[in-house]
């Protein structure tokens, strides 16, 4: 602890044996692991010769992909921001009948993976193929990322802002625009950023709609040429787009002060009566829920009934479920082990390096699964063939992608544990490992559980990295679903989709309770 007032610095240095801070070393190692995909993209793009890179990058097809990808991100994030904010507004601030039910229903599409939603729509009508359909379906899948945080902010908002604006002479619309919307901005932008990152990473939903983006093109290039320059150069462009999105969000979020001094207790405000607009609001909410939840679940139900009349592959279904659950549990354990040192260092130590380490563990997860998988395939095949085609490598990919889910929960929990407890335990003769096991871990167990649950459920619906990295004979619910749906065997795909929805439902519930930003990073 402290050197004491009377001890000279030199004596202190002599007394405290220099020892390697294990936690910090482990944290740096974890951060380095999460930076592997980014490093791979940089090295691989630099390694491709300028002529080859030019021929692969500057061609009409890449222009088309860029147009498609950027267009989809712009259109869908905008649509999600509008739909999500409007829906949250109606449910939280107005007296629309059945508010708690609507709130749950608004979040429920989170339980339907986007590629299952896409499958349902496309098996209903091929008219959803292409840009318009892609915007419609991704909006229906991702608007909760905006709606939930906005609803959370709206619930906590003091009505005094709007009332003061009105009292100072603004009309009802102008008061909302100038006094309320700015307060919603961080929630809307944060949600939109999540939507954007998900869109850049989305593979299954868009592939099924025949709408090519960088992610689907990387997959096609991987299938045609394995992990060659054709795939890695497209991955480099995709990573650039991710960075543009991340930086753009930081810029847009701005530095305006949103807090106020002495906030006091917010007055509870009665929900705004809708009067004659009630049927309109109800119709809007109902339409949203029918499109986002009714269509996928209805179509899934239909295929289940039709599919089960022919054959219900109980053995394959059981095997895929067990494999999926095993991988998910393994990943939950692994991310916990990896997140512990990083979270501990982030909470207990200060300094620039520590901040960099903590932040960098988020970078891997904001990269699309396909980039992470491509990086690990290449690194394993070239440098560490022993781990290629092993479950271990797949788990590492999952861990890189989903580490922040555990990290955020664990950090919050650790921050509540006073360091003095460690010191007390040490002074009573417990060794550092014992402190971790007997003092720290029991105190953060709840946070750890929540984080692990989120990781668990993210693994259940992971498709892209699993397609590239799953070893011989490893079929998950997602890859089995994809195999059937890709062959247009809609009935055969349905049971796998239904199981994924069932297993994802608890995640959706958790997300509504904990709030999106905290849970998904």
């Amino acid at each position, binding site marked *: 602890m402290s050197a004491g007032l009377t001890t000279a610095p030199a004596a202190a240095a002599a007394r405290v044996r220099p020892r390697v801070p294990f936690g910090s070393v482990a944290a740096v190692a974890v951060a380095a692991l999460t930076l592997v995909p980014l490093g791979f993209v940089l090295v691989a793009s630099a390694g491709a010769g300028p002529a080859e890179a030019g021929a*692969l990058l500057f061609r009409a097809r890449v222009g088309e992909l860029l147009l498609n990808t950027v267009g989809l991100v712009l259109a869908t994030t905008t649509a999600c921001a509008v739909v999500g904010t409007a829906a949250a507004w109606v449910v939280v601030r107005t007296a629309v009948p059945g508010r708690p039910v609507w709130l749950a229903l608004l979040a429920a599409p989170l339980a339907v993976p986007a590629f299952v939603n896409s499958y349902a729509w496309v098996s209903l009508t091929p008219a959803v193929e292409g840009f318009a359909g892609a915007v419609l379906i991704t909006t229906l899948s991702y608007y909760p990322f905006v709606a939930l945080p906005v609803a959370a902010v709206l619930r906590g908002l003091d009505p005094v802002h709007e009332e003061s604006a009105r009292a100072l002479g603004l009309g009802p619309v102008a008061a909302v625009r100038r006094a309320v919307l700015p307060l919603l901005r961080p929630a809307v932008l944060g949600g939109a950023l999540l939507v954007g990152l998900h869109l850049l990473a989305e593979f299954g939903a868009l592939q099924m709609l025949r709408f090519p983006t960088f992610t689907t093109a990387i997959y096609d290039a991987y299938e*045609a040429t394995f992990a060659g320059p054709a795939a890695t150069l497209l991955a480099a462009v995709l990573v650039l787009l991710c960075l543009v999105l991340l930086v753009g969000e930081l810029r847009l979020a701005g530095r305006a002060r949103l807090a106020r001094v002495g906030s006091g207790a917010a007055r509870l405000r009665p929900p705004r009566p809708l009067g004659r607009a009630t049927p309109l609001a109800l119709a809007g909410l109902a339409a949203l829920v029918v499109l986002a939840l009714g269509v996928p679940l209805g179509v899934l139900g239909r295929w289940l009934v039709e599919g089960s009349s022919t054959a219900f592959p109980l053995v394959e279904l059981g095997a895929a479920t067990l494999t999926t659950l095993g991988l998910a549990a393994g990943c939950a354990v692994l991310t916990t082990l990896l997140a512990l040192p990083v979270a501990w260092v982030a909470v207990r130590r200060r300094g620039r390096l520590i901040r960099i380490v903590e932040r960098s563990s988020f970078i891997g997860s904001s990269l699309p699964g396909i980039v992470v998988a491509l990086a690990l395939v290449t690194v394993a095949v070239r440098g560490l063939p022993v781990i290629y085609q092993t479950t*271990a490598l797949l788990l590492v990919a999952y861990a890189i992608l989903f580490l922040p889910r555990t990290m955020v929960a664990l950090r919050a929990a650790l921050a509540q544990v006073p360091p003095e407890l460690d010191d007390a335990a040490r002074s009573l003769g417990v060794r550092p490992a014992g402190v971790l096991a007997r003092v720290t871990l029991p105190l953060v167990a709840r946070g750890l559980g929540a984080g692990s649950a989120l990781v668990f459920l993210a693994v259940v619906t992971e498709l892209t990295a699993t397609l590239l990295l799953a070893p011989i004979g490893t079929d998950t619910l997602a890859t089995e679903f994809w195999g059937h749906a890709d062959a*247009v065997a809609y009935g055969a795909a349905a049971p796998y989709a239904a199981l994924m929805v069932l297993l994802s439902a608890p995640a959706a519930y958790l997300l509504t309770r904990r709030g999106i930003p905290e849970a998904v990073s």
Partner: protein
Amino acid sequence: MRVSRGVIGLVVGALLLAGCGSAGPPEPATVTLYNAQHEDLAQEWVRDFTARTGIRVEVRNGDDSELANQIVQEGQASPADVFITENSPAMSLVSDRGLFAPVEPAALGQVPPQFRSAANDWVGIAARSTVLVYNPRLLPADQLPRSIMDLAGPQWQGRVGFPPGGADFQAIVSAVAATRGEAATGQWLQGLETNGRLYQSNTATMRAVNAGEIPAGIIYHYYWSKDRAEAGANSANAELHYFGNQDPGAFLSTSGGGVLRSSDTPREAQALVAYLNGPDGQRVLANSTALEYTVNPAVPSNPRLPPIAQLGAPPIDPNALDGPRTVQMMQQAGLL
């Protein structure tokens, strides 16, 4: 104390899980099959082969070029013993790198030369014919193209679909290049890029033709044959046009099988390949729902199919089809 034991359990569990992909010595008589053929057909083959020989087969499923490239990357360390594909460009890729062991004479002799590599390092196990699937309501039979090359012409704008991402279509392109040369193939691809609607798979293409979304599509014959043999849900309104006349569009694609040089069970691996194109394996193929052509003359193909002799396929050395070059040409044309 209980807590720390729990922690140890967690750690041990994680290590076990992390290691389980590579743990456990493989059983000696297990052959690892990298399978790019249709999973259900491969399953029927493997089941029958194991029943006859007692040799167990572990199957890794994937697509032609994905698995071929994987084998190339894995090199000597590849866990694969046998590789089977839907098309031959993926076989030539592995053959070019010298990764195949010579096929034993017994298996070589079971198929005519047109269905095996000139380097004798892989053999045909099945064959499939290129066809134009068309919707007679949108494309009357008298307006059918005489050659697959015609589809690049302006009269086909927006009227033809195909799945460029898959190994099947890429094999067809490589056959066009082998018969007509690169320059003509490049122009043809440009025309297809202008005219075509791109689909995800053969089935998706056929389904779109059947639904009247597009008048015609380039696929292999058996997708239609299989669907017709079942309920015809995706093919009832569609018919097949065989180009014939040694047209590149009459290309008969050879599905290949070969033994990896790096195999640690070469005897069992050779036995599997000899089984696949031998009478037993070919009978499984002929009697299956796969509806691909047999390549062993001793076993006739499924009677539902037009006889192989009537297809008028162009003569092509299956080991000369250049997959990587085909992909490059398709990239240049903007199809990939």
